């Protein structure tokens, strides 16, 4: 599995060879720095830590700087680990730079990001409830959740609603992965990945791009 950290630039459209207009998301990915290499002997598992996007000089903390110094780098705003199989050979060294060229042979990618926050959302928006009729005598409960539980409801093992009952509440702003985006192009000079479809999160939000399990 290949992995890279990036930032969503925005969405646009491009034509493919067949003259079809494709909706695409542009992601500025890398170059990432390998800030730490974890091994089975030291840490119990194999992984590399990648960092993306520099912290500006006035905001750097000393411990972070110390950690980054080992990779002859500067502290990064977005740091994530890429897990490697336990029997993997060391592919990356500390201080290595990883850029979009690793995706040149890849056809499909998965993208993980933080979805847009929706605030406190009702059950219709949050869970897709149907709501109540607009007319025929419905009063003050057009978007209400309906019955939550009965007093002696067995579903709640006694009185009170069952745990995990779908209700209104905070929605969005959570980790979301969208899978199997076709990788349309890799643009080396600007460090861009162009993927088909939309990826989670707002423009300029951080995201993690991984090669998919899907082959073609």
């Amino acid at each position: 599995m290949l992995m890279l950290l990036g930032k969503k630039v925005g969405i646009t459209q491009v034509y493919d060879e067949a003259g079809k207009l494709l909706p695409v998301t542009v992601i500025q990915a890398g170059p990432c720095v390998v800030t730490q290499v974890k091994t089975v002997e030291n840490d119990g598992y194999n992984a590399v830590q990648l960092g993306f996007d520099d912290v500006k000089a006035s905001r750097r903390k000393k411990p972070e700087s110390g950690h980054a110094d080992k990779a002859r780098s500067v502290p990064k705003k977005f740091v994530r680990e890429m897990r490697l199989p336990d029997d993997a050979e060391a592919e990356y060294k500390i201080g290595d730079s990883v850029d979009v060229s690793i995706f040149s042979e890849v056809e499909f990618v998965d993208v993980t990001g933080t979805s847009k926050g929706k605030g406190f959302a009702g059950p219709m928006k949050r869970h897709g409830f149907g709501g109540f009729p607009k007319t025929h005598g419905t009063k003050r409960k057009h978007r209400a959740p309906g019955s939550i539980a009965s007093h002696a409801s067995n579903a709640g093992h006694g009185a009170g609603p069952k745990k995990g009952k779908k209700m209104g509440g905070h929605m969005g702003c959570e980790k979301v992965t969208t899978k199997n985006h076709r990788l349309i192009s890799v643009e080396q000079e600007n460090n861009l990945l162009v993927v088909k479809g939309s990826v989670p999160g707002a423009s300029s939000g951080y995201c993690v791009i991984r090669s998919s399990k899907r082959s073609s």
Partner: protein
Amino acid sequence: MKTRLLDAVEKKSLKKNITHFEIGDTVNVRYRIKEGEKERIQIFTGTVIARRGRGISETFTVRRIVAGEGVERIFPIHSPNVVDIKPVQSGKTRRAKLYYLRKRVGKAVRLSQRHSEHTALK
């Protein structure tokens, strides 16, 4: 920064030379159509009544009367399937969108010829 990167991606799909044409022009649009395996080029002739959008999503609307029925086609300017656009006659207009032509029938559909300099006549 953001737009610069998006433009860089879009730019590869944009056509470099687009024939100049104006609203009100009568144009021949040659476009590629696929019939099963075969490809051929068809011509759609009519009046340009609107041009909208910018960048990759720019489109123009061509209207013509076929057997007494108005037919409009919207072409994406940068689509590879639109082979070329050739203005054959220019029309005098005072608007950017000629939607009023939709309400007109018969001779009233015609636009008076423009006599100013315009590539259509060259």
